[in-house]
């Protein structure tokens, strides 16, 4: 039995401290994911707390054949989608300045491709990526954050989103190319 499953079993047996250990293990990655999705620290802290409360109350429904991390992030993802639905925000086009269909990144390397990223220092690129993250559709931002901030594998992301691995790979590629195109824009 892996560490997570053991901690869940101990929590279900009434050992509250075991759940505190789960919180301490996942609070940082979960907070970073939610923080990047809502873009505001205080709101992200509240949401992270709510996700842990939800996780605790549905712990008895957890099936050990799934990875706990994937299950936890699925709860978090649904929580954020619900929040946007309640605020009547389209979960795909939220905060999206680009007309996605017209601006779909090309799979081919153009002959005269401009060097967008290479002209900046690494720290400048990081800042630009943070800004660009808020401008791409949330459904792509989520996958980008999981892949590059939370260090998820494509298989794990496919398990969370119930989508084929190929679709996930394609969407992460789209997210990165959109960010690269936004980096091209003048501030």
């Amino acid at each position, binding site marked *: 039995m892996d560490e997570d499953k053991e901690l869940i079993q101990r929590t279900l047996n009434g050992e509250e401290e075991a759940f505190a250990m789960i919180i301490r293990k996942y*609070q940082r990655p979960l907070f970073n994911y939610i923080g990047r999705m809502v873009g505001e620290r205080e709101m992200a802290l509240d949401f992270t707390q709510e996700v842990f409360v939800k996780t605790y109350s549905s712990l008895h429904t957890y099936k050990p054949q799934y990875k706990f991390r994937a299950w936890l992030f699925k709860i978090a993802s649904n929580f954020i989608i619900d929040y946007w639905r309640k605020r009547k925000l389209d979960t795909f086009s939220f905060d999206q300045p680009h007309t996605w269909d017209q601006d779909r990144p090309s*799979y081919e*390397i153009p002959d005269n491709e401009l060097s967008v990223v290479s002209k900046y220092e690494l720290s400048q690129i*990081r800042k630009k990526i943070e800004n660009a993250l808020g401008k791409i559709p949330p459904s792509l931002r989520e996958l980008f954050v999981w892949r590059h901030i939370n260090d998820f594998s*494509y298989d794990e992301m496919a398990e969370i989103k119930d989508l084929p691995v190929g679709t996930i790979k394609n969407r992460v590629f789209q997210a990165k190319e959109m*960010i*690269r195109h936004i980096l091209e824009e003048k501030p």
Partner: protein
Amino acid sequence: MNCLRVDQIYLYLEKELSPSETKGIEEHLVSCSKCQNAVAERRLLLRASESLPLWDPPADFSRQVMAHIFPDIFPDRVSIRKWIVASAVGFSSAALAFLAYFVFSGQSLLSFLTGLGRGALDLFRTVSVLVLKLVKLGSLLIRVIVRIFEILIQFFGHLTKMISPEMQIILITLTLILSVSLFFGVKRKYLTGEKA
């Protein structure tokens, strides 16, 4: 091999391709400057993406969450601000009640305060005399205990010189056995009421 596709470049950089696909790409890159530039560009983007600064939750975040889930077991710590507000409210209410009593009862506030001052002075005198006596008694007690220990150490020092090491071991063992049997005997007598 034709020029690389952009999605292929990302998968190549993330080491998500099979060894044969990776080999094919590397062979193509040797002779294609357009693809070399495209790879360098995406490599930098990936490097920056993978080293974005992480946000840290507050140090007591897990405790806050636990207090939310289990309020009886993990009570939420009351903040200093809450303590200050509660104290200020309590003090103000007491002061208002105090003033209201003198306004409505018609008693003199000055004579009350004078009486209160005298009482406080008497109490201070009594308490200070008591504290001084306690300090004296405490220091005397410490001196007596220290002296007893000195005598005991001297006594055991002489005793070990007089008795051989083998005899010392026998004596210590006998003392231990005697103490343990005495302890259990007393316990049995008083807890179970068994007659000796």
